[in-house]
C-alpha cells in the first residue's frame, strides 16, 4: 500500500518540512530543497518582501513546493490572525503555520492563544498547522478548532537539543487523530530518524540544516534519516525488553 501523508486534503510527498529563516544566503535555498526533497517549506511573513524580487526569500522557493507562511513575531492570537490574512492576501496560499510566542528568551509557544488563532483561521478556510508545546489537552482543543496537523516542539526553537519532549509526543501520536509533526529542536539526522520511528508524520527542520557547515549535505542526510525512520516505523520495530527473555519460563509446565 502506498504510504502517503495527506494534510488539508493535499498529498505531501516528503515528510521533511523545511524552515528558511537562518540560511547564510537565500540563494542556497533551492539547492537545499533539492537535497532534502522537501515539498512543504515555511517562510516567515515578516521576511517576505514582494517589492524586492532579488532579496525576497519567496523568490527562492520553487513553485512546486507548498509555501507555508508562518506567523513568526505574533505575540497573541489577534496578531497571528492578522499575519495569516496578510499572507493570504499577498498570494502566499492558504496554508499557515501558527506561531504565537510571548516569550523571547526560550521562544516557547503560547498554547492558549494558539488554539484561539487556529479556531478563527480554520473557520476562514486556512489549512492550519499550529506550533505548540506538547500537551494532550491543548492538542485535543486544536483538533476541535479545525487544525490540519499538530506540531509539537521537540525542544526549544534553534536549540538543537533533540527530542526532549519524547514522552509527551508519544502520547500525542497515540491519542490525536491528526498528523503529528515535530517542529523545533531537532538538531541531528539521528533525532529526526528517532522521531519518525516513533510514528510522527513528519518533521520540520531549519537551524540544524541552515547552520551546518555544509547545509546541502546536511539536508541530504536529513532526507535519508527521515526516510529511514519512516520505513522503520512502517516495518514495525521489534519489542524492547528490560530483561533478557527467561530461558526457563515460569509457565512452561502448563499444557492445553
Amino acid at each position, binding site marked *: 500500500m502506498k504510504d502517503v501523508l495527506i494534510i488539508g486534503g493535499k498529498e505531501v510527498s516528503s515528510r521533511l518540512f523545511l524552515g528558511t*529563516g*537562518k*540560511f*547564510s*544566503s*537565500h540563494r542556497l535555498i533551492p539547492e537545499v530543497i533539492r537535497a532534502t526533497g522537501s515539498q512543504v517549506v515555511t517562510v516567515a*511573513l*515578516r*521576511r*517576505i*518582501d514582494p517589492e*524586492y524580487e532579488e*532579496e525576497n526569500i519567496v523568490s527562492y522557493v520553487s513553485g512546486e513546493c507548498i509555501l507555508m507562511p508562518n506567523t513568526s*513575531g505574533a*505575540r497573541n492570537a489577534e*496578531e497571528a490572525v*492578522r*499575519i495569516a490574512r*496578510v499572507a493570504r492576501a499577498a498570494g502566499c496560499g492558504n496554508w499557515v503555520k501558527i506561531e504565537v*510566542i*510571548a*516569550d*523571547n*528568551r526560550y*521562544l516557547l509557544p503560547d498554547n492558549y492563544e494558539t488554539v484561539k488563532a487556529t479556531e478563527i483561521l480554520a473557520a476562514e478556510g486556512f489549512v492550519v498547522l499550529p506550533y505548540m508545546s506538547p500537551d494532550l489537552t491543548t492538542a485535543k482543543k486544536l483538533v476541535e478548532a479545525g487544525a490540519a496537523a499538530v506540531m509539537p516542539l521537540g525542544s526549544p526553537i*534553534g*536549540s*538543537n537539543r533533540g527530542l526532549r519532549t519524547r514522552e509527551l509526543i508519544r502520547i500525542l501520536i497515540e491519542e490525536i487523530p491528526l498528523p503529528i509533526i515535530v517542529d523545533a529542536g531537532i538538531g541531528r539526522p539521528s533525532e529526526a530518524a528517532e522521531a519518525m520511528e516513533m510514528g510522527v508524520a513528519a518533521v520540520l527542520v531549519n*537551524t540544524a540544516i*541552515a*547552520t551546518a557547515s555544509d547545509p546541502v549535505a546536511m539536508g541530504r542526510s536529513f532526507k535519508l534519516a527521515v526516510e529511514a525512520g519512516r520505513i522503520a516505523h512502517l516495518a514495525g520495530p521489534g519489542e524492547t525488553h528490560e530483561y533478557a527473555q527467561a530461558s526457563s519460563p515460569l509457565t512452561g509446565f502448563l499444557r492445553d
Partner: protein
Amino acid sequence: MCQRYDKFDFDSFFKQVTDAGIKRIIAKNRLTETDFLSLLSPRAEKYLEEMAQKAHRCTVQNFGRVIFLFTPMYLANYCVNQCVYCGFNVHNKLERKKLTRAEVEREAKIIAATGLKHILILTGESRRESPVSYIRECVEVLKKYFTSISIEVYPLEENEYVELVSVGVDGFTMFQEVYNKEAYAEFHPGGPKRNYRFRLEAPERACRAGMRTVNVGALLGLHQWRAEAFLTGLHADYLQNTFPDVEVSISPPRMRPQLGGFPPKVEVSDKNLVQYILAFRLFMPRGGVTISTREPSELRDRLVRLGATKMSAGSSTAVGGHSASCAQTGQFEISDKRGVMEMAKMLYAQNYQPVYKDWQTL
C-alpha cells in the same frame, strides 16, 4: 535595578575574579549577573578567543547567519538640552532644521530605493519644534515606504508611546548615555534630560505601550566602560524579564568627534568593545546587538562574527542627509560610510544574508 549597584565597588570585584572562575563561566549555559560582570573584568581579556568562539556559535544558533539592516533618518535637530558630548547641544551654532512632510517623503524615496524596509527616525529634544504630533505626521508619510518604523526621540509619556504605536511605530531606541548618576548629572548640565529617572524608565513605558522591539545603550567614553556595559546588560535583562514578548537589544556606541569638540573622558579600545559584546552575548543569548556606522568598516566587518545582529547602513546623522541637496552638520561624524549595497556585498562575502525586512506592518 541600577540602584543596587550605586555604591558597588567594581574594582574590588574585578580583583577577586579568577582564571578558573572565568573558564567555568564560559562553559555555563545560563549566566548570572555576577558571571556577566566577571566576563567584563580585566582578567577575562585573556579569554576573549574562547568567549568569541562560544558567542559566535550562540549567535548563529539563535539568529542564523543573518544581519538585519536599517538606516537612521534625522527628522529634526532642534534641541533644548545641553549634553556636553552632543553636536545638537542647544549652545552649539548650527543650522537648525526640521523636515517638512515633502522632505520626509523625498528622503523616504531615496532610502526605500536601497531596498531597506526598516527605518529609525530621530529628533533632538524640543517639544515645541518636534512634538509628538510632528513625529506622528512623519510616521504617516513613512508608513507608505517602510514596514517597520523605530523611534529614537526624547523620552515620552506612556500615552504618547501608545499614540505612536497606534499609527505604526513598532520599535524604540533610547540610550541612557551614562548609567552612573554622578556622571549623568555632570554631562547633562541643563534641559529636561537632566531627569535621570524619567529617561531610565522610558523603555518600560515604551514596552507597556506595545512596542515590539526595544534597544538600550550607554554612550561609551563618558564613564568607566566596564560598569556601564554591565548596567546596560542588566537593564536589557530586566526589560526582557519584565516584558518577555518584547525583542530586547543593546547598542554599544562609542563616542565620535562632534561639533562641540568634547573629547571622550575614558578610552574604550576595540578590544574593550569586543569584550563587552561577547560578554553580553553569553549573558543574553537571544539579545540583539546593534552596531552603528560610528564604528569603522574594518571593525564592523569583524563584528559580524562576534555577536552583532543588526547594523545600520548608508547612514547620515544630518537632518535631510539622505537627499543629495542638503549639506547639514550632523549629530556626530560617522565612520563607516558604505551604502546598503556595499554592506550587503560585504555580508555575502562573509557568508551572511543581509535582511532588509524583518517585520510587516499589520
